[in-house]
């Protein structure tokens, strides 16, 4: 029976404006404001001064101001081959890594759900444990394995399979391995929680109706866990696109991703407007679609809940 909740708090609590106000103000000042400044500077010109960008708002006389928007930065990003290629490779690497994470993570989550409850706790803890260790260290552990003098090359040479160290690091593949390694828990946990929610009687019904285990998996379990898969996929894919640390450590000069290019434009070329424009592009092409998608999911979820309540 759905019960109607009376929101007594709203009427009783006088400090409500404080409760809403403090976090609201924080976000306005330290999240929205920076984004607007980013947008503003992305329309400015690079000039040799401190700070290195021109002011887009100029006072002509005391009463009128002139706003000059400079689209050159964006034109550069959309036409220069380097930036276009960087955007596409970053997205391809992120998608491939997320897909590989899914291939490794789904069977793991499935095996954990199937295991006995006592062991399940321990297995889950082992999944979360690396999340609490520094991710820099986890990336570094792959340097130890993949470096020219690293353990894998040493082992292969010791076994006599190769006589020259292989170049395992400094390519997009090594970057992907780093991403898969660090983000694997983010894939396993949402899939695990969506698998755990599945009512076992549904699966048993499928068996009773003559499904083979494989068919039951593909026609019942997999569709019911799609929400977890989607969450896991976006949790790996999203941060992987803007990744700076992994390509910097596991890649070399040729592995240029968006995160690295923003960093280089800002710190090395001191071209703040171009770095800002790149960031704005990343927000427009990556963050906003995902937010809209999440919003859509939320609305759909609420609709489903309403239907259930009516039934």
């Amino acid at each position, binding site marked *: 029976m759905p019960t109607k909740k009376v*929101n*007594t*708090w709203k009427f*009783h*609590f006088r*400090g409500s404006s*404080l*409760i*809403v106000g*403090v*976090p*609201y103000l924080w*976000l306005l000042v*330290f*999240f929205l*404001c*920076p*984004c607007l*400044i*980013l947008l503003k500077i992305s329309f400015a010109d690079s000039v040799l001064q401190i*700070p290195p960008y021109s002011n887009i708002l100029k006072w002509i006389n005391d009463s009128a101001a002139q706003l000059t928007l400079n689209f050159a930065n964006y034109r550069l990003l959309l036409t220069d081959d380097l930036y276009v290629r960087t955007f596409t490779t970053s997205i391809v690497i992120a998608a491939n890594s997320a897909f590989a994470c899914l291939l490794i*993570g789904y069977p*793991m989550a499935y*095996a954990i759900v199937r295991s006995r409850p006592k062991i399940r*706790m*321990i*297995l*889950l*803890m*082992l999944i979360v444990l*690396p999340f609490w*260790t*520094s991710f*820099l*260290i*986890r990336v*570094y*552990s792959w*340097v*130890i394995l993949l*470096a020219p*003098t690293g353990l894998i090359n040493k082992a292969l040479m010791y076994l006599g399979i190769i006589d020259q160290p292989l170049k395992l690091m400094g390519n997009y593949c090594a970057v992907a391995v780093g991403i898969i*390694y660090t983000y*694997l828990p*983010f894939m396993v*946990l*949402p899939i695990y*929680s969506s698998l*755990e929610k599945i009512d076992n009687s549904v699966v048993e019904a499928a068996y009773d109706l003559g499904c083979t285990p494989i068919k039951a998996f593909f026609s019942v379990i997999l569709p019911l866990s799609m929400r977890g898969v989607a*969450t896991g996929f976006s949790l790996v894919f999203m*941060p992987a696109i803007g990744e700076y*640390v992994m390509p910097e450590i596991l890649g070399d000069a040729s592995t240029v991703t968006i995160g690295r290019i*923003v960093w280089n434009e*800002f710190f090395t070329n001191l071209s703040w407007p171009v770095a*800002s424009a790149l*960031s704005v592009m990343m927000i427009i092409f*990556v*963050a906003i679609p995902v*937010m809209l998608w999440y*919003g859509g999911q939320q609305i759909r979820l609420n609709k489903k809940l309403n239907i259930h309540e009516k039934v």
Partner: protein
Amino acid sequence: MLLFGYAFMYVPLFCIIALSFNDSKFVTAWSHFSFKWYKALAQNSIMLDAALNSLKIACFTATISVLIGTLAAIAIVRFKRFKGRPFFVGMMTAPLIMPDVVVGLSLLLLFVSMTNLLGWPGEHGILTVAIAHITLSLSYVTAVIQSRLTEMDSSIEEAALDLGATPIKVFFAITIPSISSAIMSGWILSFVLSFDDVVLASFVSGPQSTTLPMVVFSSIRMGLSPQINAMTTIIVSILTVCVAIAGYVIYHSGKKISNRSRQEKKRWQGLM
């Protein structure tokens, strides 16, 4: 597949731990057992100063994020209608999706503009790094506390209100204690996030406020370093001890096992 997955996750870490006791200057060439690199780490003043900075920033970040995050979670769960609520919720979740590089860059630009306009914060240091970390971890903390608050039975609060308790008293006597586990895990989570961050800190830190991840990052970029192996071993052992204690407590609380594991799960769902 499960075994392969765990091997994939743990073998690289065990390699580092084994190599941290290596006497050789070359990281991957084994000579013989020694504590040499632990001694070197203990005398590395750059590393120690940075670790102290990181510790200060992480404690400050965690405390402030929990304070503001609790308010934000209450605002989202309890006040269904206030001006700009969807916008507020959107801003709350956006930092989870935004790449670190973008957040770091935009905050630095903010600090530069603010210094030009208001003369504050001027020099970048521990405070600016902490502000950046709070902005990032606020979203996580709010998500964790929010999920606990949503499932909390509000009838106790209503009963207390009916019996004449003031809202403030109800808040401190009932609401806060019942979400205390979420507040705790929010604090730990935000501490770890802050202690682990390298990108935001690189953008907004000043010369006096280098954090431990920044030092580790630059030494990794130089190549393999035995001192990092020693540090990894220390971090992993501290963590294992913590988890073992937590596991022991959970195991010996008998009946509470199922209850606790549900809480743990909720915590992760909050993280997701």
